């Protein structure tokens, strides 16, 4: 029943995204009935704005990081009976129409998990330095895990229920994206990469990770790999 939208749960991790989350949720809600915003202990009105836009809001009482918020949203969706779990960033960088492409890829390409990639075509206007960082990161993940992805750090993903049940993110911070790739390898999940467009706004760049944060992210990931 992959076509049924009732079974699709969109998980939106959000930390201090009050100014962006309303529009993101509204757009999603025009297409999907189950939009789950995980408010990761925000200090601002993120939860209220998300609720106003029609999202199911679940709240971390203290900030635990994006990986932790994603896992909470995934757990919740699975408990609610989701057939497909989609992860979607709260800052407006993703497009709602790409969600359908990911869901189609799960079905048409018989994949367990579909991951968006901004590098499969030239539609995303990726800043040069960010492009370089993400390329290095993808190469690093290829060496570390043997999983070949052009854009391992894309926040837009779709998981079949079986994959959502198996994936368990233990890295609370941003290194969870690398951890997902790890688990794809370990669980032998079938992956489909789908071209998506990332909209780089001044807001999403300001709110997003600085290029320097890559060092911290790589450290978190390596420590987790070494000391499980």
């Amino acid at each position, binding site marked *: 029943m992959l076509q049924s939208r009732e079974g699709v749960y969109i998980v939106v991790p959000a930390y201090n995204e009050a100014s962006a989350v309303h529009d993101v949720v509204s757009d999603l809600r025009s297409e999907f*009935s189950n939009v789950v915003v995980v408010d990761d202990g925000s200090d601002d009105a993120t939860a209220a704005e998300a609720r106003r836009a029609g999202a199911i809001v679940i709240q971390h009482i203290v900030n*635990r990081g994006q990986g932790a918020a994603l896992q909470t949203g995934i757990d919740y969706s699975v408990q609610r009976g989701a057939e497909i779990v989609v992860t979607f960033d709260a800052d407006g960088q993703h497009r709602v129409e790409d969600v359908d492409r990911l869901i189609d890829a799960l079905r048409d390409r018989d994949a367990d998990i579909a991951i968006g990639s901004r590098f499969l075509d030239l539609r995303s206007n990726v800043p040069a330095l960010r492009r370089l960082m993400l390329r290095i990161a993808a190469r690093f993940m290829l060496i570390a895990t043997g999983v070949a992805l052009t854009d391992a750090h894309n926040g837009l993903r779709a998981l079949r229920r079986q994959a959502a049940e198996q994936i368990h993110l233990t890295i609370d911070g941003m290194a969870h994206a690398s951890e997902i790739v790890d688990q794809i390898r370990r669980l032998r999940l079938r992956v489909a990469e789908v071209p998506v467009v990332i909209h780089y706004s001044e807001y999403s760049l300001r709110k997003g990770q600085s290029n320097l944060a890559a060092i911290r992210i790589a450290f978190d990931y390596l420590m987790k790999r070494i000391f499980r």
Partner: protein
Amino acid sequence: MTTFQIVTLPLLALMVLATAIQIARRRLTPRFGMAWIALWVAAAVSIADPDLLVRVAHFLGIGRGADLVLYLSVIFTFAAFFLTYLRFRKLDEQLTKIVRHLAIKESVAPPTSAASTGEIAGPTHK
């Protein structure tokens, strides 16, 4: 006896006593507590008899007793940092589990008045 010995030896004796009390009150496990006591005693012995410390240093191929103490402290400190890091990470994981459990437990249904084209399949429980 040097002034340094007069000041530090009673202090270390107090530390041994304090550690023993913590073991007796079961705030320290006997094993962990004995490790601390061994450290205090080793410090006391090397202060009381610096020549012994020098002989141990020479035996290990280190020129001065003070260098031996320095090297051991650095290793000990970094090991402590590392163990603390692992402990912190474990606490982090436990905290995340609690926060996640609470978040899911306390989740509420979205308002049914929300603009919706389809059926709302939100949670029905409080």
